[in-house]
């Protein structure tokens, strides 16, 4: 079973490649253009979750990735 554990992630990666996800020039712009309908939720006490603070980095990434 130990073997299986080590090889399945590789099998999955290989599968994703050959299954067609690497089939196109799908640039980072596809990410950049994703709409902003969802966001990290604020914690109930009004404090932002740790995730929320990262959105600025994400925005930067989107900008750079264009």
């Amino acid at each position, binding site marked *: 079973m130990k073997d299986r554990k080590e090889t399945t992630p590789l099998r999955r990666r290989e599968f*994703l490649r050959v299954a067609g996800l690497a089939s196109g*020039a*799908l640039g980072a712009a*596809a990410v950049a*253009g*994703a*709409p902003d309908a969802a966001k990290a939720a604020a914690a109930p006490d009004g404090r932002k979750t740790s995730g929320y603070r*990262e959105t600025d980095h994400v925005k930067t990434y989107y900008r750079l990735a264009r």
Partner: protein
Amino acid sequence: MTYVANIPEEDMLRARFYGLLARVLAAPMSAETLTFVRGLQGDDTEMGRALATFASLAQRATKTGAEEEYSELFFGMGAGGELGPYASRYLTGFVYEKPLADLRETMAEFGIAAADGLREPEDHIAFLCEVMHGLITGRFGKPVGLDGQRSFFKKHIQPWGTRFFEDVERAKAAVLYMPVGTIGKLLIAIEAEAFEMAA
């Protein structure tokens, strides 16, 4: 940029497909989106051909034409769109049903909220694709890992996504959006199989 760089290449590819679907299904295409789609390229795989078809149709489409097709296809909620791109609609025949309530519960668990001003119910296919994109890239915090992605996908997308995208493929009003149906259908099939491998 660092945490994005930590995401394996295959997962970034998955995220980009979800991002593409979210982008073209959330709203009528902007000029920028149309330009982007026109530049898509694909190889000779089924997915690659769907991308290339989408690009060549977009090259011949006008922004107004694309908007009209989007409206005819998706402006549901009583506005007469051919398809209702909502999980509740597909699974129960009505909008604002239990699938939406289940989704809201999952989103609360993951700490994801709808952005202010979102007027559609969150079980819209574009929203679900955006959530998958965010779960993979860590846009809502840390990436949730494959287990979380699999659970979200199995619960909220897999039960109806294939039927929805097949409906897009053969919808009467679908010309430009026809390959979007193909891309979505293929992505769901690939995801389902890949998640099984990692299980």
